[in-house]
């Protein structure tokens, strides 16, 4: 049984609400994380696990942002540095550097890929109406990876599209080989 159907059974706002679970409402949830000075977010249902940074095993002749592979409970998981990929921030590895492992469904197959980010920050609730289109004024991230922008207090958070994250990996590696 998945989390969402369980969540439906829990009384939402307006009904008798339970303490501690007031964050559960009808909105979609996103995990926000930091790359450089910017906030990003990804659909929380894709997130498999959040790990501390550990040095992975290198893959020979791979592009520089593919850091290598790690062993996650017997599964070989490639690690990709999102900061390098998107050209945001410094690629240093500190104690707060974490790896967000995502399960991405592609053509009925699921791929497990880890992404290096500077830090994870919060869970963001956003309804479909809250998501605004990103203006096409050209950041360093190509538009197909961006689902939209969400305002959070004074910050603006970029929502990323998980399916595209899988695709750029493929695409850029192919480009690198040429």
């Amino acid at each position, binding site marked *: 049984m998945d989390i969402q159907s369980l969540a439906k059974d829990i009384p939402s706002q307006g009904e008798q609400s339970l303490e501690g679970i007031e964050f559960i409402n009808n909105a979609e949830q996103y995990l926000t994380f930091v790359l450089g000075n910017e906030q990003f977010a990804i659909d929380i249902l894709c997130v498999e696990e959040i790990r501390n940074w550990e040095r992975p*095993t290198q893959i*020979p*002749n791979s592009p520089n942002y593919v850091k290598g*592979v790690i*062993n996650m409970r017997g599964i*070989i998981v*490639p690690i990709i540095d999102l900061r390098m990929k998107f050209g945001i921030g410094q690629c240093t590895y500190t104690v707060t550097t974490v790896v967000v492992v995502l399960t991405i469904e592609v053509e009925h197959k699921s791929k497990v*890929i880890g992404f290096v980010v500077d830090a994870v920050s919060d869970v963001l609730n956003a309804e479909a109406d809250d998501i605004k289109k990103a203006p096409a004024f050209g950041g360093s991230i190509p538009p197909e990876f961006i689902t939209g922008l969400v305002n959070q207090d004074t910050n603006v958070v970029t929502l990323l599209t998980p399916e595209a994250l899988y695709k750029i990996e493929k695409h850029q*590696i192919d480009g690198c080989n040429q």
Partner: protein
Amino acid sequence: MSIDLAQFLPTFLEESYEGLEIMETGLLNLQSSEDDSIHSIFRAAHSIKGGAGTFGFNQVTEFTHLVETLLDEMRDGRREILKSDIEILLQSVDCIRLLIDADHNKVVCEDESISNVEGLLNESLKSSSTDTQPQNDNKSEKTQSATDAQSWLIDFTPQPHLVQTGNDPLFLFNALADLGELEIVCNTSELPAFSDVEPKELYLSWQIKLTSSDATEDDIREVFEWVEDECTLEITLLTNDATPNVQEDEAVNNETQEQDPEVQSTQPESEQSSKQELAEPLSPNTITTDTNVLTTKPQSAIVGKDKASPAKAKPDVGSIRVGVDKVDMLINLVGELVITQSMLSELGNDFDLSKVEKLTSGLDQLLQNTKELQESVMRIRMLPISFAFNRFPRLIHDLSIKTGKQIELVIKGEQTELDKTVMEQIGDPLVHLVRNAADHGIESTEVRLANGKSAKGTISLNAYHVGGSIVIEVNDDGGGINREAVLNKAIEKGIVEPNSSLTDAQVFDLLFEPGFSTASEVTDISGRGVGMDVVKKNIQSLGGRIQVESEPGKGSCFKVNLPLTLAILDGQLVRVGTEVYIIPLITIVESLQAKAELINRVSGNMVLYRLREDNVPVLPIYQLFNLEAQCTEIENALLVVVEFDGQKVGLMVDDLLAQQQVVIKSLQDNYQQVDGISGATILGDGSVAMILDIPGMITMALKQAQVAQKATVNNNVEVV
């Protein structure tokens, strides 16, 4: 039917293909009607028919019915088993296979061979019905007594859960209608008030009067065979003008049967009458029962429909049949593992130094358990090679007819076990080798006799274990490979320099060159399928190799050497810079410390190492993989000499570490194919290590060299 049948479809398909195999093997061994195999053939055909009916595979049902009729006549000894009939039946086996595929994909199979074979079957059946009739009276008393009409009273009281097990009384009645005229009275006294009706339960019972029937009690019991345990069944004879209790030993054997059409097929007259019976509208009673049955289970029917669609969308998942002994052993081992685990955790609760000895022994036990567990899990994937071999009797049978040669097949070591994946991929190359042996290897009968050999040629398949690998031999006692012809052809093709002296092994290796054939004429046997170069490629992709031995006039032997499994590999761990790599042990020739005086730089800074007589090119892993290595000077480096396809290469590494078995994990699952890497594995400390793909690395190095050479050529042009 009321329950979701789609979930049983894969099982049905699997069993049907197995049944076809049984039929095929049985037919090839069939000598006489006394032979037991006719019964197993019949049973296989009958199960396929029954299953096909259940799943609505109508093409299969119709066709198999004909086959079954023919088989039934053979089984009862009413028909002599002729070679021609066996031929037809073998062809029908192929047809059934085609039809099952067609019905599975919901298409109408329009292959001509099916209508051809169907014609042959009908013809054969017609020719029999006239001359078997008199025999019938003499031979089987039971059928004779059964020809007298008799009446039966059947009390059928099913248990309430009958329909939940997928049985439908209507089918039973239809099957009974094949035996004679029916009068059915439905007893609805048990039916509760409408509000209390449980839709999945059956509340009805029936009283059936079977008249003008020639069926025996066993025939009737057979109809109810599948529901025997789920109903109370009373069968009484009304008109007592024949002895009903004739023991029929098949009835015991036919466990898998659903409805027996035996009587229908053996008695043409009764068949006609029962057909008419079916064509007429069923009696009112039957119709009532029909609606009753339908109304008792609307809910489950809907559920079934809903489930059916996603099940179809699922791709076919391969499955393995595992012997119960293997599973039992696993359970035992897991039990032991749990005991060890609880012992260790108890030990850890209040641990002090006095318990160190206990701890070490506990850890030893854990090691032992894990090893055994690993071995038996691997054994689950292992299947006897007979799965790959059992298609060959049929192949040889067909080939000997096609080529007009007399060929005998000898199979040895069919219990040798092999990984399922390897087995699946070795099938086609083996077929090719056997075809070759039959077509090119074995001489024609005249030539054989002229050479003082027996008229019958022998092809033998032999499998056995050697160390961690399995060897499969395809032997023939034919003319052997003509060394000169191969050599001439190679020279003609420009593969080999004229006047070069080659060993026998080198010459025979030429057979695996692409587009190489010494056959003077291309037959439809050797023209089909994969070429020898593909055979070799397939075997190499499995990590195996193939060798040829041949003696003129005595025959040839193709030896295929394969690893037992693709999931585990013996590896040598090596270190380059900070990374650990694994070199498959099977590829390693030797490891050595380079000596400066044996290093030569030739033809533009290509580094060669003199290994006895050979000059081995040196391949620094750090260059190939763009790594930072500790040791970049070849002069005092460690070299691991590996060999693939006759090409030796010295891999330069920083350090040699342990040798161990590693479990191969795919990189492609979550990433993609990487050049020079065949997979990854997890080491004892939990870190990941890459497994080197030696052929891939050689190709990579060649590519890099080509790029470099091109650059030099371009430079030269500029200079000019």
